[in-house]
């Protein structure tokens, strides 16, 4: 992994950037580099993680302001080149706000901030982000969000289903998401957005290792 570098984006208000970096470096021996949101130079990173948190204090809507940062502007070319982008929680919200992924994330149906472990069904193999080739079709990951209810119109949902873009579905939908959606990919499969936190499930001592596969997938070509 010596030459492969994952860029971990830091917005004002990001708070899972260090967790992601620790999981990648400490658990998977993958090098990381923090990318300040005002940087638009992505030339020396091979994949990017948009971590969880509250970018710009979630002002206006979650992810709405972050969308206009120089880094997100530069992301279009990065994604088109086929390189991998993983948006976790607030990162997922940013990816929908900026149009890299369809739909939107809005307030949980019961208005609670939910912090829990959830069971998830792996639905699609698109992009190779999840281990669904073998026996493991269900994983357990932590969630921690107040605005994680995935919403899209029926045409978009049909497109997601028909093109196998739904990556993860909640077994027991905690937040009212359409079609129990917890994570989706773009059509090419190189962009994944998900509300659960794989970086918080990378060591047995903190409750599980089901997040390792997804983070390790960042190095896939």
């Amino acid at each position, binding site marked *: 992994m010596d030459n492969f570098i994952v860029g971990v984006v830091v917005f004002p208000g990001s708070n899972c950037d260090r967790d992601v970096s620790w999981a990648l470096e400490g658990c998977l021996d993958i090098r990381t580099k923090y990318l300040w949101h005002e940087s638009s130079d992505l030339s020396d990173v091979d994949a990017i993680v948009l971590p969880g948190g509250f970018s710009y204090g979630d002002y206006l809507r979650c992810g709405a302001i972050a969308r*206009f940062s120089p880094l997100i502007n530069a992301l279009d070319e990065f994604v088109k080149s086929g390189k991998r982008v993983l948006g976790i929680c607030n990162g997922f919200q940013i990816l929908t706000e900026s149009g890299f992924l369809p739909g939107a994330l809005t*307030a949980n149906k*019961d*208005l609670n901030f939910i912090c829990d472990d959830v069971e998830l069904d792996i639905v699609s193999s698109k992009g190779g982000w999840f281990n669904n080739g073998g026996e493991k079709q269900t994983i357990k990951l932590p969630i921690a969000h107040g605005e994680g*209810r995935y919403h899209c*119109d029926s045409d978009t949902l049909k497109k997601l289903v028909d093109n196998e873009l739904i990556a993860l579905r909640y077994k027991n939908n905690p937040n009212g998401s359409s079609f129990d959606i917890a994570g989706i990919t773009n059509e090419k499969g190189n962009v994944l957005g998900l509300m659960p936190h794989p970086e918080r499930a990378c060591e047995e001592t903190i409750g599980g290792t089901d997040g390792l596969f997804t983070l390790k997938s960042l190095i896939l070509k």
Partner: protein
Amino acid sequence: MDQFAVKVFVRLRPSVLDPAGEATKSASIKLGAEGIKSLRIGKMIEVKIEGNAENEVREKIDLLCDRLFANTVIEDYEYSLEKL
């Protein structure tokens, strides 16, 4: 150059569940208000903006509403514009 006062109203689309509106409706009923059939919460954004002509200002506000103030996947918007 003229100055315009713009009031933008952003609302969740009717098809999108508004849990905050539902919670406020429930509290309104507990307060004793009768007859509330529906309660939904939106945002109002006030902008003061300079421009040479109303059309030019409307173009800018349309862009702001469409790209920033509202997420049109889940929200609708409308605005009123007044020349100061």
